């Protein structure tokens, strides 16, 4: 029974023993074990695309009261495979005068950081690719490579729309990076370590209860980093016609899409790790550690469901509203939240005391922020120019 409950850890140990018993030197055992782990994680990540693409279309369709894809297999669940076959067999068109090297480089660069994120995500008490000392910082650093890929794609397409959209996407990504990093800092304040396993283990109370404002800011910023609605102005089909991806066809376009969905899945897991308690579930992880990957997957699916819900519900935001919202609302709010967190951690060392104080502080902060925004919006409503905006703008 113990073998079943601790299945993953036992499996890893058994496999390591098997490899050494074949007479391989220890570095080869490590290398093969690493390689298999990497393969499993990469396959896991790509599976996410296969699962979440039809899920997204079905969920949004149901929210809009229509059936969604339902041709491929009952309920259209294998739609992603049909899409993959379609993408594989489309002709690859490279526009004239485009920089061929850059045009081909961008899909490669965009897929790598999305996959690399899976190396530091915790799936269970002993299940992690590499428990780096700087786990969370690794996630942030790797995420910024995506920005570069967008610029290369935009420039390499020799297309005005592509370039314009690339500039705007980069600005959006940069603007929402800072609130994300500040919220991560607030979490690290409470846990005292940057290791992803450490953050999960330190959450006796899940952090979205302790600091809901930080969780919300992180969710919004992660949405914007993934270029999802309601902030996908720059890659939506009805807007700038897929923006920086417009000159890509076939598998290269699929690379951008795969990167987006893998990124979404990784963001779901990161949010679950930081704010939802990771692989913990009211003690289930002590009873049956074999179920922890399932717990993580379900939490990530919940976060993705939230993202899809946002997409189906909200209209798109204009670009200047977008960046104004990030710089003028989210960054000051995240800064104040960070300071509040620092104060709370020093006031009391008791975990429950910190949780209660931080929650109260967050509620007060949220109320104050909404009050200020309301007052500023009302002042603008009474102004001669009738502008309804989202952010405080003077």
């Amino acid at each position: 029974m113990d073998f079943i409950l601790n299945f993953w850890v036992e499996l890893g140990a058994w496999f390591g023993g098997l490899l050494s018993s074949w007479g391989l030197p220890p570095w080869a055992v490590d290398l093969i074990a690493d390689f298999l782990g990497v393969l499993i994680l990469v396959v896991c990540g790509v599976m996410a695309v296969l699962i979440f693409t039809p899920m997204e279309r079905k969920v949004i369709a149901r929210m809009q009261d229509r059936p969604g894809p339902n041709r491929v297999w009952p309920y259209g669940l294998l739609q992603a495979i049909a899409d993959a076959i379609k993408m594989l067999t489309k002709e690859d068109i490279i526009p004239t005068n485009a920089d061929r090297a850059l045009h081909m480089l961008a899909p490669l660069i965009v897929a790598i950081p999305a996959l690399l994120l899976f190396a530091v995500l915790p799936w269970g008490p002993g299940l992690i690719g590499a428990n780096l000392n700087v786990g969370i910082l690794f996630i942030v650093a790797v995420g910024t490579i995506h920005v570069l890929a967008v610029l290369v794609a935009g420039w390499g397409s020799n297309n005005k729309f592509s370039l314009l959209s690339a500039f705007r996407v980069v600005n959006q990504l940069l603007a929402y990076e800072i609130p994300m990093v500040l919220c991560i800092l607030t979490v690290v304040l409470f846990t005292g370590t940057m290791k992803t396993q450490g953050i999960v283990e330190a959450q006796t109370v899940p952090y979205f209860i302790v600091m809901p404002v930080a969780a919300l800011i992180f969710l919004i910023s992660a949405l914007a980093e993934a270029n999802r609605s309601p902030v996908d102005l720059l890659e939506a089909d009805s807007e700038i016609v897929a923006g920086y991806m417009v000159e890509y066809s076939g598998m290269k376009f699929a690379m951008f899409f795969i990167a987006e969905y893998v990124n979404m899945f990784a963001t779901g897991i990161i949010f679950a790790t930081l704010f939802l308690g990771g692989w913990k579930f009211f003690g289930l992880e002590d009873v049956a550690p074999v179920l922890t990957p399932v717990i993580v997957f379900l939490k990530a699916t919940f976060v993705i469901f939230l993202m899809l819900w946002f997409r189906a519900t909200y209209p798109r935001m204009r670009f200047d509203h977008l960046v104004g919202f990030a710089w003028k609302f989210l960054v000051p709010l995240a800064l104040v939240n960070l300071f509040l967190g620092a104060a709370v951690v020093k006031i009391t060392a008791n975990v429950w005391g910190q949780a209660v104080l931080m929650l109260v502080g967050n509620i007060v902060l949220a109320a104050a922020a909404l009050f200020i925004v309301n007052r500023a919006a009302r002042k603008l409503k009474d102004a001669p120019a009738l502008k309804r905006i989202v952010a405080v703008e003077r």
Partner: protein
Amino acid sequence: MTLLSDYNFIGVFVVVAVIFPFVALGMAWLLRPKKPNPVKSDTYECGLQTFGDTWVQFRAQYYIYALVFVVFDIEAVFLFPWAVAYNKLPLWALFEAALFLGILTVGLVYAWRKGALRWQ
């Protein structure tokens, strides 16, 4: 050297992650038709011919946003070691960091008031 052995994993991961798009694109290269055609290879402009060179009015505002981002990025970088060591530091670490954050908030407010964050 357990530190570097963690990075062995990352190294293998980087190699596999770099190979993966090549494999995918290679499969596509084998499977897809190749019939280039001058009309197909034209730059996309909603069905019209492109006018003039590809040149977009690059507004300085894009650059300013990137500049402000760099400053706040480095601020966040300085705050990471503080956040990790925070539990072991005495109380006045809070005030030191408050001073640091305060100075940079002054910068943010300055940029805001001078309209550097406004999209014209």
